[in-house]
């Protein structure tokens, strides 16, 4: 996986950790690489979960190339079918903030802060913040952050439901790897379908979503992973050896 210009990829069991080769990236730098990477992640049966390492800080500048100004990075992240995690450190603003919103599990350090001040620059968000942030932290808090450029610290971020856990700068990567290894112990088919059903549930009437949940569950009925896991349960054994088939 060294075909990327700006990403460094490390493998941990059935998961990968993606680090950016520089902290100040432009949107077009990221877009080229991420577009390729998302396809690789989705179609590689050996990748069951993905983590982004922003533990050295993370900033995204607007695209240099005009064609990329309005292209969505968050949409690319939303297209990742496998569970996504991120480790955050430092000041996360504007597009970098938007970038972390579609991720499934977010860990940050005590000195992380989050803000969106496009409105102060006579601009508005265009990469999903107005749609994603209210779903994550609730409408009132999202309006405060987006309409008034109010920034929040790590503790507030946990209280509002933006961040799962706070840890120190020294422990953040260990904690993220621990979470990654936990999720790759589960069946990858089950985690992908669960993620799909939860995200679908955000967009659809509940009864329709419940029927979709049933359909996904029926697809799983025929998987080897499920048959073997249930047989292990019947034999009173734990089952850790999922194959994703």
């Amino acid at each position, binding site marked *: 996986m060294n075909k990327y210009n700006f990403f460094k990829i490390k493998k941990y069991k059935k998961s990968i950790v993606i680090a950016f080769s520089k902290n100040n990236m432009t949107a077009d730098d990221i877009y080229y690489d991420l577009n390729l990477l998302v396809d690789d992640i989705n179609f590689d049966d050996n990748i069951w979960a993905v983590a982004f390492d922003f533990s050295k800080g993370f900033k995204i500048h607007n695209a240099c190339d005009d064609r990329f100004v309005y292209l969505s990075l968050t949409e690319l992240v939303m297209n990742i079918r496998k569970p996504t995690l991120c480790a955050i450190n430092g000041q996360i603003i504007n597009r970098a903030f938007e970038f972390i919103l579609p991720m499934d599990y977010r860990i940050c350090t005590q000195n992380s802060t989050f803000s969106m001040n496009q409105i102060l620059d006579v601009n508005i968000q265009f990469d999903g913040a107005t749609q994603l942030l209210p779903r994550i932290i609730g409408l009132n808090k999202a309006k405060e952050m987006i309409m008034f450029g109010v920034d929040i610290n790590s503790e507030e971020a946990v209280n509002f439901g933006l961040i799962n856990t706070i840890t120190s700068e020294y422990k953040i990567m260990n904690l993220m790897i621990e*979470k990654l290894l936990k999720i790759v112990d589960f069946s990858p088919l089950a985690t992908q379908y669960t993620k799909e059903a*939860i995200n679908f549930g*955000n967009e659809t009437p509940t009864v329709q979503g419940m*029927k979709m949940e049933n359909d996904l569950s029926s697809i799983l*009925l025929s998987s080897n992973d499920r048959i073997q896991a249930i047989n292990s349960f019947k034999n009173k054994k734990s089952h850790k050896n999922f194959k994703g088939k």
Partner: protein
Amino acid sequence: MPWEYIKYNKKNNIAHIELDNSSKKNSFNIIMREELKEVINAISIDNDIKVLIFSSTSENFSSGADLSEFNTFPSIVKSNQIAKYKNLWIDLYQFEKPIISLTKGWAIGSGFELLMLSDFVFAHTSSKFLMPEVQWSLIPISGGTQTFVNKIKDLYVKEILLFSEEINADKALKIGLVNCIFEDYSELLNHVFKYAEKISSIDTSRLIKIKKLLNFSTEKNIYFGKRLEEIYSRSL
């Protein structure tokens, strides 16, 4: 009528269903689900009943689906049809009267999801909650991926469903999974019945409309919900 896996009582406009399969930690088997479906359909058309309470007869609320029945289905297509069109959980989501659940000990899988289909959840401090599906290559099938999203923040939904994190009573209260917690079980029981009596003193048709409106608010089509609110408020 005697039931094998549930106990049913009706008193002062309050229906009370107790899950009663303690030899299997109150897991839901096919018969229990059919019994529940039958009772719930009867309650929904019984004009005397204004509120429904769920609790359990044993020290745990429920350990979820009876996994020993898994892999015994004759056909995937048939099993999908039954799950989709004879779905107890959809009946519960669409149940018009208020549902109060009282939980203690473990609420796992479908047991946890039943709590999320309730309008109010009161918990004993011994309560623990877990969605273990991903550990067994399953996904929730009692509406969990949909109802959790309606009740708690997205981040916690994913912690619980994707990472299979265990939740204790304190955290459940903090993130909004339960309405309140009690240390003393008899006090909890007393509180729930008083709460149910209070609710049952309100006009049923008004309760049904308010519940429907609140559920609509989670259905994303805010303009339709707003219009319905206007129509309902005019008809009161």
